[in-house]
């Protein structure tokens, strides 16, 4: 049975004892344990979170026939290496990788507020019930993290570089399942991962200071046998294993060749993609790249000209690199924002050529880990205003992700008030959905 039948109190107790409750295990080891009965196709997920909501018309659902009121300057979509599939003209590198990913053009939920839309897309739950559900990363950290036998020193759920902050990612599961946010900027050298990589403190000084700390720990000395303090000491040991040991070197991007780094683009996003690949290679089951800057109400097309090439280079290289290393078959890449952007350009002041929030129809991209590449699922009308074929709701996507991650169909989440709630949101018969992404799942 799933590990979740363990009670909350048990979880707390183990946490106090400092064994299973640790965020980090003792050794860096690849891969999470597959739950019984179900084979996991995906060992890891890289979520590219497009904070603010990217325009579907300017990326993966171009509409040149709609005219310049809709597509602005981007009137010439480009063909891809998949026959019949066109994408936005600012994404030429991604066009060459289109056989590796599938485009979900039927995404819809109808909500235009950031908070609620973010919550819906990231948790796959409808809002309004007033329970806060965990997002996909927190569920992964529960089913593929330490509770499931993950032994890595690097936390199982990493956010590059800051949490998205609209709601509590772990929801009612509690802070143990929250992501570890790296802080710092992977484009800089060194990538100063908060807590793990310290500027200008030599290893010698780290060790001498630690010695001083131990010698001055008078209360600790007065209370040998304290279980509380033993738990803290165990955490300190894990922390120093990361500070002084080899595990933290996964964050040292300078060990990559210049060519490898250049290939991803020397941008925060590009280097985050490279970082994500390295983390997945080390066995980390869930990495979110929190990619800000897509809430483009004003100066929309200027922003697109600047940002889309970054996106194109980083994401295309990620597909290519994962594929070359044989990691794409076991790694899901999930690209999505909370919604799309208004197909009709807002030409009047104060927007002067911006795009609004748009939850009625938008695009997402999935690849790898059991998702087939080279397909387009769903379609919007000639102006990208509404889904006309194959609606895809957020819960259709999250349920598909959970299935490929090998989470058993009857797995449950334990609510702090004692209820057991099915992990799969689409098991709720009253929830209207378009169904899991069977057409592209192997």
């Amino acid at each position: 049975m799933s590990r979740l039948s363990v009670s909350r109190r048990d979880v707390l107790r183990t946490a106090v004892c400092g064994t299973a409750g640790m965020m980090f295990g003792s050794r860096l080891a690849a891969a999470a344990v597959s739950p019984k009965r179900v084979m996991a196709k995906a060992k890891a997920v890289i979520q590219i979170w497009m904070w603010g909501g990217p325009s579907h018309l300017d990326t993966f659902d171009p509409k040149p026939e709609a005219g310049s009121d809709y597509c602005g300057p981007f009137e010439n979509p480009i063909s891809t290496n998949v026959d019949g599939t066109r994408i936005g003209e600012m994404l030429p590198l991604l066009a060459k990788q289109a056989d590796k990913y599938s485009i979900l053009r039927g995404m819809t939920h109808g909500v235009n507020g950031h908070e609620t839309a973010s919550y819906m897309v990231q948790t796959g739950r409808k809002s309004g019930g007033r329970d806060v559900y965990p997002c996909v990363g927190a569920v992964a950290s529960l089913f593929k993290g330490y509770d499931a036998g993950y032994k890595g020193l690097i936390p199982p759920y990493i956010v590059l570089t800051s949490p998205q902050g609209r709601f509590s990612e772990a929801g009612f599961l509690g802070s143990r399942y929250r992501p570890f946010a790296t802080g710092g900027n992977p484009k800089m050298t060194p990538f100063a991962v908060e807590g793990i990589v310290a500027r200008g403190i030599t290893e010698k000084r780290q060790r001498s200071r630690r010695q001083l700390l131990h010698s001055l720990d008078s209360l600790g000395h007065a209370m040998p046998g304290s279980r509380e303090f033993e738990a803290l000491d165990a955490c300190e040991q894990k922390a120093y294993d990361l500070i002084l040991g080899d595990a933290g070197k996964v964050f040292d991007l300078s060990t990559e060749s210049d060519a490898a780094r250049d290939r991803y683009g020397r941008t925060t996003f590009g280097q985050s993609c490279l970082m994500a690949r390295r983390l997945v290679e080390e066995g980390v089951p869930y990495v979110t790249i929190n990619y800000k800057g897509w809430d483009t109400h004003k100066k929309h097309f200027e922003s697109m000209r600047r940002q889309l090439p970054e996106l194109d280079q980083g994401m295309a290289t990620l597909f290519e690199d994962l594929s070359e290393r044989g990691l794409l078959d076991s790694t899901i890449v999930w690209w999505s924002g909370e919604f799309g952007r208004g197909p009709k350009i807002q030409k009047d002041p104060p927007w002067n050529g911006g795009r609004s929030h748009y939850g009625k129809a938008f695009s997402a991209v999935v690849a790898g880990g059991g998702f087939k590449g080279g397909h387009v699922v769903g379609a919007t009308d000639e102006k990208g205003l509404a889904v006309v074929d194959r609606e895809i709701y957020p819960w259709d996507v999250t349920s598909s992700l959970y299935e490929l991650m090998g989470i058993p169909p009857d797995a449950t989440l334990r609510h702090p008030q004692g209820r057991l709630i099915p992990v799969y949101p689409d098991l709720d018969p009253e929830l209207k959905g378009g169904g899991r992404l069977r057409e592209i799942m192997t």
Partner: protein
Amino acid sequence: MRTPQITAMRHGGLEVVIAVLFCVVSLGAASASAPVRPFERAGDAPPRHRGDELVMDSLAARGIAPAAICSDAVFLRRVYLDVIGTIPTPKEARAFLGSDLPGKRQTLISQLLARDEFADYWALKWGDLLRVKSEFPINLWPNAAQAYHRWVRTALAENMPYDQFAREILVASGSNFRVPQVNFYRSMQSKTPEAISKGVALGFMGVRPEKWPAARMAELAGFFSKVGFKATSEWKEEIVYFDPWKTNAVSFSVTIFPDGAPATLKRGQDPRAAFADWLIRPENPWFAPNAVNRVWFWLMGRGIVHQPDDFREDNPPRNPELLEWLSRELVNADYDLKHIYRLVLNSRTYQQSSIPASEHPDAVPLFAHYPTRRLDAEVLIDAICQITGTTETYTSATPEPFTFIPEDQRSIELMDGSISSPFLDMFGRPPRDTGLLSERSNLPTPAQRLHLLNSSHIRDKFEKSKKLRTMLQSAKKPREAITLLYMTILSRRPTEDEVDLVMAHQAKHRMDRRRTALDLAWALINTKEFLYRH
């Protein structure tokens, strides 16, 4: 019936003697006879009141030796953290430690209970319980959350009697912006009568009615089946009111109170008022016990009923007489909660050392020592900011109305659970989704350890601290600098051994004074003594 301590000891008879011998043998230096410096003081203290006697009786009956009395330095630190969520300044620490006045502990308790930070800190705790939060899933909206927080804080600052506090919340009607306490009805998991009654039972009875039989749960929900909600033309305003014609998905009747007493409503009476009047009667089996048990939990780290918000027949109080005595004290003091704080804080039980004198499994649930707990997230970052003279930046995720948080605002003053920081989240600040006391997590994690040991966030606070630099420049000798840092960070003087250790560290690594001071400050904020209430 009064049972003096000495009688109880005699009752314990041989068991006590054996227990004491056992302690001496097994714990050696930690036994009651030799106080552990600098955390304990010599000599025992007599019971302060009936509550202490009841604790001592229950310990003696099981042969559990109580811990020694904590030192003045430990008491100072502890009572500041427990009462105002703030560490003492070096000046305050010097004044208290240097005083020979008799009853100085009692005087300090009274002073702290009267400070502004008392209301700040307890409004934070009550904000957790009452789910004061503007965003998902409570969705109070920023100005309603702020109005509600201000109402709660004012009630605490003015020491509103607790029965009045509960009644004002429960019978409130009006606008969420103008009658702040109506936000209680807006801060539930949903607005159904069942959900509201669960929130009421959790908050004011310490009960989780989902564990009750369905029929009993429905009887309770009946009292909240006529709570109406309506919007106005003002953006995000909502009126909460008594709606006698309200219909629900299922129909409820109001016939019986949770204790089985019959309920008869007058014509046109708001059933919430009938409920509130029943709730705050002195003989109500939940109201006062829940209130005193929660204060006991907050100050003593563990409820007499534990978990403190899970009163039920199969989870009885470990010391029922103690709970009964405290409840009676609250009722007799006209629901003055500060009276309960005073009783607990002045007790021998509260002033015990955190170093256990017994390894008996009942030592913890029967309060044989003061339990160590990691500082709350907000208290911890405030303490680091106070030491370094730095501030934290807080912003609201809701852009309109934009909530401006002044740079020098302390974290314990944050009015809205939606306003947070990576630090507060990492250190277990509750999301305020459910109102359960267990939402706040003070468990240590490796990520927290990494952050305090090695993050640029904390490191910059110390390396760039003008306050520390100025303070250290005033020290003429190294020893003086060491003492200043100890007083600022741990609120006590260093022992001779500790001074020697620091001097040896400096000599061994041939460090300058600034570097030594930074290393020492870094080490001290990472000690258990700093990180834990003890």
